[in-house]
């Protein structure tokens, strides 16, 4: 058995202003200073901390947001002077996909790398679109992996990137003629990708490379940024090199990890050949925007010997339609692509990496169930550093933004100061991935699946809303959502 993969997390509190959900309102002028004050009895010492904070001349002028909204003080105050309200700033964070709750849980996971645990049952909507219309399976009886979570057995989260031969071929005299496969094995099915809105900040790229090295995975970097990465981390870097630049970036290609990304383009197979000439064992991955016709393109490229694809969806996990409008969610796109490749008979030769819209650990598991081999974390890494997904005038990478162009919009952003401290930034990224990894183990353990490789495309171990609704409620009469009254 290989050494158990373990992510070393370090408690690293965020240095950014953390918006909280609940704020207390206190009509202090009516306070009777009675002997039954509820404030000292708060289970979480919220009032005491706030009082100290407010008296500290050096403390920042911002609320602490420690209240858990248990209403004990609100309901107990002898004169009814306390009340709670929801912080509008909290509700304004993010957008309909990167919800305030997702942003908040990401901050917490990046603090210490722990799985978010809470009491009381599930609180959210019954279902949603995209990944929120999938439930993962569990297994009621003993399966060999059962003990994995609490430590006695091993659940593997490793995946391989690279062209895998479907079968070995031998010459008549018995020599193997299939060239040996060169695979990049990473111990968790996530690579660290460029955020959907690139912040022009080399520090962020360096932190990503450092985090990738500590995690044992790889980080995708623009060649420009990769040139600044110290030698110690270069082995964990996947540079994006455009076809024209291959010659110019030859040292980088030689010294970085075995994977190189080439943006999809007309001469992609020639470019791939050029890279392989420079570095014979390299794994060329094609970076492409996920589109409705991606499956066709993959089949065509696979015919030309390209086997690793990085499919970039938009920040909400949707493909980009021909007219630029958002299309299907990656869950549907992946099922189609995976099915197509299976039908063509060479799915196992191919590696699919999916990015965009992977916001939570569960998205990683669900994308893999839908047919991806692994995913790439992008925006989530920014959120770990305090990003609130304000999308404040950023250019989106998916629009083909050229970082060098004068139109590229790259506003001032708190991320830049976070990225200034490389270790702080890298630790928070490592923590987040640590929390994701533990959650993936929970999901795999519940299913009784021993390794994440076997999860790929296992749609039978998931419950899809459209299908189960038909099975469970198909025989109910339908009524329009607005009740018809006589």
């Amino acid at each position, binding site marked *: 058995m290989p050494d158990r993969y373990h992510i070393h997390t370090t408690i690293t509190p965020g240095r950014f202003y953390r918006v909280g959900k609940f704020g207390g309102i206190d009509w202090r002028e009516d306070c009777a200073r009675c002997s039954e004050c509820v404030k000292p009895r*708060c*289970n*979480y010492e919220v009032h005491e901390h706030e009082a100290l904070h407010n008296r500290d001349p050096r403390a920042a002028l911002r609320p602490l947001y420690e209240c*858990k*909204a*248990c*209403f*004990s003080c*609100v*309901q*107990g*105050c002898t*004169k*009814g002077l306390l009340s*709670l*309200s*929801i912080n509008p700033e909290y509700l304004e964070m993010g957008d309909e996909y990167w919800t305030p709750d997702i942003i908040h*849980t990401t901050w917490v996971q990046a603090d210490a790398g722990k*799985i*978010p*645990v*809470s*009491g*009381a*049952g*599930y*609180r*959210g*909507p*019954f*279902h949603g679109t995209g990944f929120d219309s999938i*439930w993962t*399976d*569990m297994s*009621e*009886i*003993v399966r060999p992996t059962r003990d994995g979570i*609490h430590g006695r057995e091993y659940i593997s989260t490793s995946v391989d990137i690279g062209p895998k031969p479907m079968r070995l071929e031998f010459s008549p005299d018995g020599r193997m003629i299939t060239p040996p496969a060169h695979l990049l094995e990473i111990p968790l099915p996530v690579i660290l990708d460029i955020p959907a809105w690139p912040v022009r900040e080399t520090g962020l790229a360096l932190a990503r490379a450092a985090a990738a090295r500590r995690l044992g995975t790889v980080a995708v970097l623009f060649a420009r940024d990769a040139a600044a990465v110290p030698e110690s981390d270069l082995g964990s870097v996947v540079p994006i090199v455009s076809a024209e630049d291959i010659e110019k970036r030859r040292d980088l290609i030689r010294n970085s990890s075995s994977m190189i990304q080439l943006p999809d383009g007309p001469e992609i197979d020639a470019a791939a050949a050029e890279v392989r000439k420079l570095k014979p064992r390299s794994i060329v991955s094609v970076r492409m925007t996920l589109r409705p016709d991606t499956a066709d393109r993959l089949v065509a490229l696979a015919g030309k010997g390209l086997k690793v694809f990085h499919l970039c969806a938009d920040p909400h996990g949707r493909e980009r339609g021909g007219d630029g409008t958002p299309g299907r969610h990656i869950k549907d796109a992946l099922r189609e692509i995976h099915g197509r490749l299976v039908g063509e008979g060479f799915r196992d030769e191919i590696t699919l990496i999916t990015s965009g819209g992977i916001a939570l650990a569960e998205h990683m*598991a*669900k994308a893999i169930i839908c047919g991806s081999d692994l995913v790439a974390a992008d925006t989530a890494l920014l959120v770990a550093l305090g990003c609130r997904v304000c999308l404040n005038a950023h250019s989106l990478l998916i629009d083909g933004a050229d970082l060098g162009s004068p139109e590229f919009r790259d506003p001032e952003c708190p991320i830049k100061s976070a990225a200034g401290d490389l270790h702080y930034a890298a630790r928070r990224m490592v923590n987040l991935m640590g929390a994701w990894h533990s959650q993936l183990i*929970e*999901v795999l353990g*519940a299913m*009784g699946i021993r390794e994440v490789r076997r999860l790929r495309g296992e749609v*039978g171990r*998931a*419950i899809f809303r459209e299908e189960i*609704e038909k*099975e469970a*409620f198909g025989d*109910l*009469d*339908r*009524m*329009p*959502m*607005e*009740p*018809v009254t*006589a």
Partner: protein
Amino acid sequence: MTTTIADLKRQNNERYQRPGNSDYPQETVERIVRPAPDRYRNAIGKFKVDRLANCIACGRCAEVCSYGVHAKPEGYKYTIRPQDYRCIGPACLETGQDCVSQCPVHALRVRLNPNAECLGDPRWSSDLVLATWHMAETGHRPPAHLEYRLGESGGGFDRIRFKFEVDGSEPDRALADKPEDPASNSGPEADTGLELNRRGDNRPRIRIDIPVYGGGMSFGSVSIHTILAKARAMTAWNSFTCTGEGGYPDRLKPYDDHVITQVATGLFGVREETIRRVRIVEFKYAQGAKPGLGGHLLGDKNTPDVAQMRGAVAGNALFSPFPFHSVYSVEDHKKHLDWIKEVNPRCLVSVKVSTPTDVDMVAVGSFYAGAHIIHLDGSYGGTGAAPDIAKKNIAMPIEYAVPKVHKFLSAESIREKVTLIASGGIRTAYDALKAIALGADGVVIGTTEMIALGCVRCSTCESGRGCPRGIASTDPEMVALMPLDWATQRLINLQNAWREQMIYVLKKLGLPSIQSLRGRTDFLCYMDDSINTKDVAK
């Protein structure tokens, strides 16, 4: 002389001539509805009534308000602080006979209570929490301004209605608003009883008066007052409560006849004696809120009392593994049930499972292993502490599992031989009725009881000293926050309100009993947002 199994059986039978199996004197609890107002000084309502400083204390508001929001008791100089949780809001303001318009100096204002907006979530909306509090306080349906049937989750039960609710035949509740349901007071009552043993074996037939019993909550995860209140209320309603996995506190003994002993994967606190004294034993394979994952009691909650009962060391976190490590097949499963049946020859056996994709197969397997009750625990149920990822994503919600299993058991021609119980996301009486119409025989509730006791769903049950409201804590100071008598009354009231609503619905449907509602999906409809109202009107 050696004792044979046959001897043991005979001895057991002689010992258990009474209806129950306990040799401890059993207490009765009166089934009486009495008011049990909020145990906090400031009850929270949907609306807030502000009285401004220019009030001249004329007392007019106290005269006009028929809901008791305002009061100026004899001899008082000032009108006392508005009891605004009783206020029904705009529905009153429209009448013109309201305090706001009648106040001579315009000192009153009614608005939505910001506190209420902080309460709740899509599953348990603020209205639903307040409505459940109202039912626990009064024992009856809440007034029209509180939605007490549906949450705001946008799926499952919240998308299903009884047809009479939407075809315009039901009078507008806002108009016909009286706290009590008139339906429950007139004519013969529909029968809400539920038969638990359908196997036709030689074990006792047990009938409960309501199609509801209480879910397992272990000593350790909730306070002893919570456990006892649940047991006492279910004793009053001639139903059951369950120990959960954490042993059998001695203080439960007076209610043995209404307690289900749970045997779960950690086997914490399970002894032959605790299996013998009850009428139902429940095997817990999995829990809906954390399906596929084991139980976990944090070290802080493992106080010396808890540890003693569980046979563990205080202060250590306690894990119960998942699943039973002796069960690899239906045959192994049967051996487990046979073991229990041997230890207690007069008990019924329930098997609690969560809801994997093959839940239908699991249910059939449990039947062939000898279960009397198959208890499906859906994935949106409650828990003391579980990973968020599990609560949201793993296994299917109960709304899907019930029809799936019901149809499968029917196709196997064994549906009439087993009792199917649904839990994990049954929040309201309407949820329970819908689950039954989808194919369950009855339901198990947990979170609803916690809400009735004053839970605000702050989700902090597991941290530090535990529940700040004294419901799910073992810290003595916190436990003292909730008196036992009050808690018992709240739960008795809750069940009364539920039962009134069940009878109301059964009457609307023209059914004589809750059992005749089972599987009647023809009474239900699904609210589909892809259908346009206009298309239907055409």
